[in-house]
């Protein structure tokens, strides 16, 4: 039996599970769409881990991260619950020791993390602007009728990338249609889109930050060769994409669980994939805040409640 560390990253778009051994080597990773159903995604993720590695696993620690980290922690019995910034920074530092800048672009959010001597010194997250995230590329690829997988290859074949307004997804789209109608080749338009996204990211998320090499680029969008090229051109430096770029959040969570080194993990066992979890909710009428209280139940037992401002419900159940 070998001891392993589980890292679970429950994001709005994807849910990732990473399994590390004692030496921090990645044994397997699972990438799933969350589809708005984090509980099912977590169960499916763990099921796949068992399918790949077998049942003979001794879980020495579990870490959760992502916007669904709280839910995942209660469900699985996590030892460490960490925000995405810390998880991504830890993973990037491990993959590329001495990293000073982490660019992370996922489906619905993007972040920049600045590290100096291995410690996070500054960070920023994008929350409001769709033009700075992967969904922007997804949408435009769909508009152009090309699979997102071909996007990078097409962009690399560009001779003269066209300039497309990147400040806003709506402006970008009308600008792009205009360039299409003028007859610019597809390669140049696709490359232009990558550059627009990079400009938007650097102006919005990266504004005021001192971007120094080594620069690591991670998140789902790092799969796109066009984006990698656009970043290294804009920054004038090499951009490193780590091997497990798509699951760095989960990777970091697993590393953090290992670092915490619990004597006995509070992991609730792989059987939890077969148990029935349900979330329910109600609107509290205690005051005019009308908080939407959410509760997580396993069978009849309430595991946790959250969503109230005053603590009336969340404190009633020991988490």
């Amino acid at each position, binding site marked *: 039996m070998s001891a392993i560390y589980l890292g679970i990253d429950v994001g709005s778009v994807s849910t990732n599970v990473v399994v590390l051994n004692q030496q921090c080597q990645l044994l397997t990773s699972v990438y799933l769409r969350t589809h708005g159903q984090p509980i099912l995604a977590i169960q499916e993720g763990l099921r796949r881990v068992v399918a790949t590695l077998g049942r003979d696993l001794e879980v020495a620690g579990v870490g959760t991260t992502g*916007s669904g980290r709280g839910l995942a922690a209660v469900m699985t019995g996590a030892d460490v619950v*960490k*925000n*995405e*910034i*810390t998880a991504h920074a830890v993973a990037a530092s491990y993959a590329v020791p001495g990293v000073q800048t982490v660019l992370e672009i996922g489906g619905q959010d993007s972040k920049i993390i600045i590290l100096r*001597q291995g*410690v*996070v*010194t*500054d*960070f920023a*997250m994008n*929350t409001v602007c769709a033009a700075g995230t992967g969904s922007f590329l997804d949408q435009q690829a769909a508009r152009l009728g090309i699979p997102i997988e071909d996007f990078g290859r097409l962009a690399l074949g560009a001779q003269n990338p066209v300039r497309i307004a990147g400040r806003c997804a709506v402006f970008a789209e009308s600008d792009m249609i205009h360039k299409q109608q003028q007859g610019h080749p597809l390669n140049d338009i696709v490359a232009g889109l990558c550059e627009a996204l990079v400009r938007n990211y650097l102006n919005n998320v990266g504004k*005021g930050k001192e971007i120094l090499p080594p620069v690591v680029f991670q998140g789902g969008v790092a799969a796109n060769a066009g984006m990698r090229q656009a970043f290294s051109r804009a920054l004038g430096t090499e951009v490193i994409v780590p091997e497990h770029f798509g699951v760095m959040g989960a990777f970091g969570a697993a590393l953090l669980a290992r670092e915490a080194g619990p004597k006995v993990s509070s992991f609730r066992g792989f059987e939890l994939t077969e148990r029935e979890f349900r979330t329910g909710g109600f609107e509290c009428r205690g*005051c*005019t*805040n*009308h908080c939407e209280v959410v509760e997580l139940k396993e069978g009849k037992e309430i595991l946790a409640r959250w969503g109230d*401002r005053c*603590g009336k419900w969340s*404190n009633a159940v020991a988490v």
Partner: protein
Amino acid sequence: MKVTFPHMGHLWLVLQTALEGIGLEVVVPPPCTRRTLELGVRHAPESACLPLKVNLGNFLEAKELGADTIVMAGGVGPCRIGYYAQVQREILRDIDCEYEMVVFEPPDVHFSEVWDKVKYLNRRPWQEGVGGVILAWQKACAVDALEQEVQRLRPREERPGQADAVFRRALQGLAAAGNRREINRLVKESRAELAAIPRQPEVSLLKIGIVGEIYTVLEPLVNLNIERRLGALGAEVVRGLFLSRWINDNLFRGLLPLPGHHPEKTAPPFLNHFVGGHGWESVGDTVTFARQGCDGVIQLAPLTCMPEIVAHSVMPAVQQAKGIPVMTIYLDEQTGEAGLQTRLEAFVDMLRRHKNKIVG
């Protein structure tokens, strides 16, 4: 005449005492909730900043309780809030919400402008009115003294929320207190209760300074209870903005010997001018907090707040020169708390790892 006013943190307690002190019937608006925000947002111009919207919600909710007169602050200078009383008056008229509005602002020509308004509101012999105002001032000082203890206690208490429970009870008691002796007794009792709260074994705490626009700093609905969140994350919060100090600085012209704001001494060379609102103070306080050994500073502002945008743009220079991390958070209508919580956790993590590295 039934008088009401906008909420701003614990301001209600002070204003209620002062206005009742001059013989007025007072309607305290219901505490700010999501409903307040929804009402305000429905009728306010979209591009206005959050204080206008929440205040408007306060007025509409107070109307339901029978208020007919609003006491509102005006102002001069680059901050838009100086003009909001006029905008709100127009909006209320448009939606047929009958209100008389008495706006207190720095006089154009002569102090008698302010005086006339006080005379208009006053219903009592002068000696009694002055007594009420002094009582209100004493309450402001009591609230701030207790709140500072609660700030210190939040990251140290064994079970989160206990200090806040004591504080909530103390606020209710202070609101009802009728004389100085009662206030002193309440403060003493609350202090004893706070001291009796079981604490965690001594842990190394972070110290985070909060700066920014006064409304977002003082109103928990708007800042999503940021101080309690930070406390629960193991960070002790300090700030320079308190009601009593603000009253002393602005209404008493700094006459009383309280620690006031002196941005003219602390903010240069980063920012050498008043820029409206509390922008200058934000920069000055950040410098002060760095000197006092805070681990980090969080700047709060309503989205599109001009004075704080100016301060924000100066922060990188302060950050570099003073070696103190600053995170700026713009607050708006969003009630989703996950985004704020993630940022706070990440900021606290960052400061903690940084601190351990320096120590270790």
